[in-house]
């Protein structure tokens, strides 16, 4: 017991990668639910981070996320991932309506020399909890997605990283006339994740 408690305080690169990857999975799922991308009945409740999270049960979505996240975790392990962006675009017009960006800063020393950091599980969890709560609360300021939308995940990787065969280069898919809201961030001391959401805001430009 004592050793288990002690090891929990140490964060390795591998462990941090697992935490961050898992967080991305749940964050994407809860954005999909909160923004109504897929029908409500495709979601099921699970307990996570001390919250009740909604997870998409659609097999094709699950399969997509599984494949993307496994690659993401590989990039996180090598410190190549700089940013993960969830793009919400209209099916009909292909116009980008929302952009959820997660900036990732990797501790260089951990990747290069494998040094470990100290941070308690509880602390990380409460930070993640805060971001998830913010995602849930985001519907209060984000405009209604009135048309059917799909989502896409963009990974910003280091320029020197190889492109896997199942991935392709994409443009940034930025929104013109957007408003941005910075969300909270969390850190495992190995990875620091800053969340931000940008949404289409036509009124401001006029």
């Amino acid at each position: 017991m004592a050793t288990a408690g002690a090891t929990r305080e140490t964060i390795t690169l591998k462990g941090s990668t697992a935490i961050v990857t898992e967080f991305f999975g749940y964050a994407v799922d809860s954005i999909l639910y909160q923004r109504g991308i897929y029908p409500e009945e495709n979601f099921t409740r699970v307990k996570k981070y001390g919250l009740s999270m909604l997870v998409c049960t659609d097999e094709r979505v699950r399969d997509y996320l599984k494949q993307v996240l496994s690659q993401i975790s590989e990039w996180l392990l090598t410190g190549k991932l700089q940013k993960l962006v969830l793009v919400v675009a209209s099916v009909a017009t292909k116009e980008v309506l929302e952009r959820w960006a997660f900036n990732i800063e990797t501790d260089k020393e951990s990747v290069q020399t494998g040094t470990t950091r100290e941070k308690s599980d509880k602390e990380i969890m409460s930070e993640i909890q805060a971001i998830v709560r913010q995602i849930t609360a985001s519907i209060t300021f984000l405009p209604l997605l009135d048309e059917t939308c799909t989502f896409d995940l963009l990974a910003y990787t280091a320029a020197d990283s190889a492109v896997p065969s199942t991935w392709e280069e994409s443009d940034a898919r930025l929104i013109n006339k957007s408003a941005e809201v910075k969300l909270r961030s969390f850190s495992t001391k190995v990875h620091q994740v800053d969340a931000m959401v940008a949404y289409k805001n036509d009124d401001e430009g006029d």
Partner: protein
Amino acid sequence: MACKTPVKTPLGQACRERRAANCQEYQSPRPVALFRSAKKSTPCKTPSRIRSPGKGDRFIPSRRAMDLDVAHFTLMQESAKENAGSHASDCLSPTKEEYKRQLAGSLLRTDESEQCRILAFKHKAPAPPEGHVNPMRVLYSQNMDPAVRPAKKAFRHIPSAPERILDAPELVDDYYLNLLDWSARNTLAIALGSTVYLWNAASGTIQELMEAGNEGGEDYVTSVAWAGDGKHLAVGLGSSEVQLWDCEANKQIRSLRGHSARVGALSWSGPTLSSGGRDSLILNHDVRLREHITARMTGAHEQEICGLKWSPSGAQLASGGNDNLLHVWDAAQSAAPLHRIDQHQAAVKALAWCPFQANLLASGGGTADRCIKFWNTNTGACVNSIDTHSQVCALQWSPTERELLSSHGFSQNQLCLWKYPSMAKVAELTGHTARVLHLALSPDGTTVASAAADETLRFWKVFGGNDAASVPAGTRGKAAAKAQDSRSGLRSINIR
């Protein structure tokens, strides 16, 4: 690996150390460096620096627009480079270095200060199902401005007596037929025995459209259904034929064959007409095509099909049969039903798709079942079920309120108006003396016509808003006709 790391580490360390040294070295002159840059941009000399950070100085009144972090970073980089240059005595000329720096600065002055590659997974995430409406819509309409939001009707009077009664002699008393439909052009079609009559609701005129089996043989009409244009009527016959009529020209356009027994259920979705017969077969006909049968749905039902309804979006088709089964079909897939529902204990004739909530289907069972059940057709889950204590013959949703009207058989022969989703009974309309087999909604959404085995057709104004403003422009004529009717009081007309 082994030979690489020892080479790399000292170099990296040295680099880091040097940078650390630079940092320390430039910690103190930093304000000077900043100050110098300000001096460079302004020709005159600033006599003394204002210390308060909020106010700025008189040359740069607002520093809010400046990214001081980036400025600091570039300054530090420059000095670091200078330092490095003096050490390594670069072969680059100062102008070239300046050019390089500027180029890099202008290229990398995006929000990503480092170069990166943007990648996306090739196999994209699936699109949401067809006709999916954002469920979050409710949240946005809930707190709408009261001026925009339609005024809430606290109380609505539901007349308990029919507005009008028409005789419908020889109406076949058969639970498995669908003999009544009301068109978008405000014409009611009703099949009485072997004849189809059209009753113009605006003018009250009656017209005989066709008579089945006029080639000597005995035949009768088993189903009628108006196409969306309100001009064409599909008529299913006991002889397994489906006829298509142009009701403006009073002419039969074509005859659709494919069934081997009587066709008791018809439903339109755009140019597609679905027909269900006693041969337990459902056919989709594209009425524009020469080879009109586009899909055969066989093997799902075992007995006569008596209920058939397309969803408003045209994405799903619900079919109910005498085998107590309810099937939901995907429009794009006719090989097997999307959902097979066997929870009813009797024939499923009454089917109604909810107009305000996509994927919600109400179905009612026959004498042995007596239940109205609500289904989420995306998942096939039963949302709600209530026992009505009477055979459910027909169901009709209100287009404006969240209400459902059901018609029943023994013992009350009543129509029930239910609130959804609470399923509280709002009203019970009695008057019919035999089971109420068919319901049809007027195009203005206020009146429901009910045809019963007592050979009467009654019109109930159950969903009606009292305000004339809510009546769409196209149905003003009817409203006027109705006003005239109400002046002359309740009338009873014989259809023939």
